[in-house]
């Protein structure tokens, strides 16, 4: 036997494989690490309280869903939303309380002319924040060594938009947006051993970069002051992916999207809104390990002004959204009921809206995991003269 052969033979005899130190590729999927993550709608607090209906809202529609929504703004304004969320993840052999804070929307709009409005916005698009932890044992020549392993994902993909919206005659408004996708996710795997073993921990970090672009168009039609209808659609390029550590690159097709919505001011103090959205995520089915399906979403709500002409609003709604990336062979969905309030301040120069949602994502029996959540969306807007 050659010297190298003797070395391999002796090493093979003397190397101890641990009992369990790595999970299989088909381990439990979670929303944060399945496909490109969990979609995050670019909503303000008003739309969040109305079941996510934001395509055609009478009154100030600050969400970045329909590029035509800011047509006729007549002023300049800046606003943003923050979305803290807490929940419980549960399933067979799975448990944890999770918390997160996402910034779904930040926007600056300027009325260039009486009819033309320009805006820039940024916000979360796909969220990949989350982590899992487990305890296992390493079997060595000196005995068993317990260890704790943590696998974390920090980051996601954001969307930047440059939008132009214009009013036309007859209650028609049109808008177009150039959209840019940019993001980074840090993947961390850490293994810490029992203190008694006096082993140094093992830690690997990698970063996945994302970039892409797309276009969106939207239209609004307000045939009468008490009714608004809207339609929107978008197209995305291939989303480029790159692992900074291994320099492996890839692409994922972004979907076509389509949305229909409407709102009705049934009385001066009572408004009803409804939205339907569809996205062709099945184009990415072969690009991501989890597979992807087309998605749809349905949401709606009511808005009341209970204190006469005082600009304070109370809202309630519900939504049902299908997510694109599969867990356990099928894509999970999110369903929630929403409650919210809003108010104008300073004679209309500022506005605050908040919404509280109670919902659930996934299904333990189907996907092996489900998440129950409580989500607060708060937005604050400031307008010029």
């Amino acid at each position, binding site marked *: 036997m050659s010297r190298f052969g003797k070395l391999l033979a002796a090493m093979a005899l003397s190397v101890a494989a641990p009992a369990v130190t790595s999970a299989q590729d088909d381990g439990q999927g979670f929303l944060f690490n399945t496909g490109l993550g969990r979609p995050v709608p670019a909503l303000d607090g008003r739309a969040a309280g109305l079941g996510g209906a934001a395509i055609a809202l009478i009154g100030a529609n600050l969400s970045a869903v329909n590029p035509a929504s800011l047509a006729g703004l007549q002023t300049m304004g800046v606003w943003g939303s923050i979305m803290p969320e807490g929940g419980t993840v549960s399933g067979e052999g799975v448990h944890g309380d999770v918390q997160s804070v996402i910034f779904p929307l930040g926007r600056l709009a300027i009325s260039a002319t009486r009819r033309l409005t320009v805006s820039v916005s940024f916000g979360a698009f796909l969220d990949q924040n989350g982590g*899992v932890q487990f305890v296992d044992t390493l079997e060595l020549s000196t005995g068993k060594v317990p260890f704790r392993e943590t696998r974390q994902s920090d980051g996601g993909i954001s969307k930047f938009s440059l939008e132009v919206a214009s009013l036309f005659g007859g209650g028609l408004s049109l808008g177009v947006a150039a959209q840019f996708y940019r993001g980074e996710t840090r993947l961390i795997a850490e293994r810490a051993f029992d203190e008694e073993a006096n082993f140094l921990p093992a830690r690997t970090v990698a970063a996945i970069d994302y970039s892409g672009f797309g276009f969106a168009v939207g239209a609004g039609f307000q045939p009468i002051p008490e009714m608004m209808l809207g339609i929107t659609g978008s197209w995305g390029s291939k989303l480029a992916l790159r692992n900074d550590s291994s320099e492996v690159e890839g692409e994922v097709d972004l979907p076509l999207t389509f949305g229909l919505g409407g709102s009705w001011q049934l009385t001066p103090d009572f408004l009803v809104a409804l939205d339907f959205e569809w996205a062709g995520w099945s184009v990415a089915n072969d690009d991501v390990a989890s597979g992807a399906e087309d998605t749809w979403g349905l949401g709606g709500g009511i808005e009341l002004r209970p204190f006469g002409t005082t600009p304070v609003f109370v809202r309630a709604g519900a939504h049902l959204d299908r997510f694109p990336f599969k867990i356990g062979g099928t894509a999970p969905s999110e369903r929630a009921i929403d409650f919210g309030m809003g108010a104008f301040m300073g004679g209309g120069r500022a506005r605050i809206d908040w919404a509280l949602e109670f919902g659930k994502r996934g299904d333990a029996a189907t996907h092996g995991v489900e998440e129950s959540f409580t989500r607060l969306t708060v937005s604050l807007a400031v307008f010029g003269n």
Partner: protein
Amino acid sequence: MTFRPVAALVAVLATGSVACTREEIVSVEPGNAPGETAPTVEALLNTAVIPDWTDTVFSGFSGPSNAGFIAVQESPDLVSHGLFRIGIVRDTVFVTDTFSAVIAYDSARIIATVDANRSDFTDAGITVQLRTVEQDWHNGTATWQLAVDTVGAQVPWTTPGGSFGSVLDEVVVTAADDSVVFELGAATDSLLSIWADTSQANLGLAFVVVDSGLFVTFVPLLVYGTVPELFPDTTVVTASSATERTFVFDPPAPPVPTGVLRLGGVNGFRIYGQLVLGDSILVTGGTGVVAIGGAQINAAQLIIRSLNAPAPPFGAEAPFSSVTFRLAINFDVLGPKTPVAELVEGSDIIIDPDSLVLGSELRIDFTSRLQELADSLDRFGTEIQPQIRFGIRAIPEGSTFGYWEFGSAEGDSALAPILRIILTGATAFGLP
């Protein structure tokens, strides 16, 4: 506005809008965790299969003259005589505010602290003599046979073990004594006058055990009275420590047998080793190969295994510490003169003879050294040879008379050294 700062702002906003989150960790069962991470594996690499693992022993890095003690012994196994010099004896003394020449010395005594832990007493105690020395000797090189053993001269003792003269004092040392006092008596003035006169040879003094036992002391102290010329009715007491001290013993330590690694002892035995690792480790169970380059070394140990206690009187009589250091070149080029490099971080261990039996394992931490090697292999690949060169020494050297012995690469494979490595390869994250 240039594009680059805008792109940077976009990147910051992109990260901030999604990454400004605080998430808690979800607990899962080990088999349920998503993704796949690199396994942690153990390799026990013995000397029979690591290419070019060689080791040896060098000595002479210390001696009785720089040991921390003087061993004086009379026993069937070993005879040892202590030698020391008081190098500084004052010939002037400061009285009130005046320097005065010394015209005479009186009441001189040698005070010797007793090392009760290492001394070996009978119930009746040990009778120790303080004697004059009648032949000059070299502190650094004196042995039982040779009074001087330098490069330029080798001068044997007239009487092996030391050519001694008159007995100045004789004291019985017992286990209850913290220190003992030897009086120089009538010889005080003559001896100290010679020692104070640097034109005359200072032959020093000797300790000799008369009956049986082991007397261990440290640095003898001379306390003496001086009579100033200006104040002849006054005696000024002064003290001086021994400036040179050693001990000569017979028989010497036996040669290091083949297949044995010897460490410590008054002669400063050191273990030197060198080995060449492969650049990857084959993992059993069909999980592939784990490369050392780029891996994270969770733990690495050089395991040396004890042999039986050395034959009396050469087994270590007390615990001693050791450290491991790097060697600058292969030890077979310059032997004992191989230049040493920095210490291996965390490599200090305690050799406790009371806890060692045949096969007992001592684990020397090599984690930092292996991680350094893994980092170098990751950075330079096959441009470097994955070689480890090391030396192990007692610290401080000469802290014990006896040494300890371990299995060598050339000896019994069941007692040969082992390199144990626990490592985790780099996890390869894929794209979503």
